[in-house]
């Protein structure tokens, strides 16, 4: 029985769906953005894997199928950007410069903190690209001599942080303009953060999507000169 369950992708898909749905329900009950459905889903799914002693390879049979959908899901942000093209046109310069300043600040900050805590260089290079989307970050990290695994973990932590904290931060800092919120989310926490931006509004989501692209490209260029 166990053998059969571990060899079918349905198990992994079911765990993810159930964990996420529970996350959505808990989020509805608690009514706070901190109780992010994605975060709850991740923790629950990981807990099920540990408790039931399900090996990652078995989970990935289904997990990879869901994972694959991230590519088209990121691509369709292009549609949101198209729908919001007028706002983008009006705010072109603030958006691009915002991404640039944000990316620069991020790289400088990490550099400073790593020196402060005297972390090894390999960790520094693993951390530097963490604000951009996973494929760019991992490629950059490898290129500079960072550790791929560490980078992937840091990218995820960053994305989840952005997704969970964005609404609260926006309130605290009095960011009301959807363009401001969108660019801040996209630059600081890539596509995972964008999921929250999309829930805040299509304009926020679209700007966040633009920022993933712009900040990603700028970080690649920055890394080349750093």
């Amino acid at each position, binding site marked *: 029985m166990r053998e059969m369950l571990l060899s079918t992708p349905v198990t992994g898909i079911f765990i*993810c769906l159930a*964990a*996420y749905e529970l996350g959505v329900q808990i989020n509805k009950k608690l009514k706070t953005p901190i109780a992010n*459905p994605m975060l709850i*889903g*991740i923790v629950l*799914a*990981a807990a099920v894997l*540990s408790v039931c002693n399900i090996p990652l390879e078995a989970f*990935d049979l*289904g997990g990879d199928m*869901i*994972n694959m*959908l*991230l*590519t*088209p*899901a*990121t*691509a*369709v942000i*292009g549609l949101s*950007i*198209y729908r919001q*093209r007028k706002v983008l046109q009006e705010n072109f310069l*603030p*958006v691009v*410069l*915002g991404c640039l300043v944000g990316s620069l*600040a*991020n790289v400088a900050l990490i550099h400073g*903190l790593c020196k402060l805590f005297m972390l090894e260089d390999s*960790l520094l290079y693993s*951390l530097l690209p*963490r604000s951009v989307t996973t494929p760019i970050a991992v*490629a950059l990290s490898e290129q500079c001599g960072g550790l791929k*695994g*560490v980078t992937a973990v840091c990218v995820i*932590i*960053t994305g*989840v*942080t952005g*997704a969970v904290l964005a609404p609260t*931060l*926006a309130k605290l*800092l009095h*960011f009301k*303009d959807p363009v*401001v919120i969108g*660019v*801040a*989310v996209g*630059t*600081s*926490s890539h*596509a*995972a953060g964008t999921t929250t931006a*999309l829930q805040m509004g299509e304009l926020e989501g679209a700007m966040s999507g633009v920022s*993933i692209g712009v900040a990603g490209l700028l970080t*690649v260029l920055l890394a080349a000169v750093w």
Partner: protein
Amino acid sequence: MKRFNHLQQCLVLFGLCLLGAIIGEISPVSVPGSVVGMMLLFVCLMTGIVKVEQVEDVADFLQKNMAFFFVPMCANILEELEILKSTGLLLLGVCVFCTVITFAITGFTVTLLQKLMNGKEKKR
């Protein structure tokens, strides 16, 4: 314009993703296929090669559920957290701290630039 059915919409979207992956692979700097795909979709919509009705339903479905698609990858990484070992907490702190500060700096920069540009327009 005739609306495409779901499979036809998938054909358009996955076609663009595939093209994006190919372009990302042959370009000198490493750009992920999904980001190139996003740009391609935008360009295709702008030039009218692809109409909104030809991708809308599937695109909205994918976008609304994007958070869910992150669950398996993140759960996977949570399981592998041991690779972080002793520096784990420190890295966590650095990541969270830097994300918050980057968020704030980016937001303030955009706000400032918007104000500057609006001021200029009013003077004209």
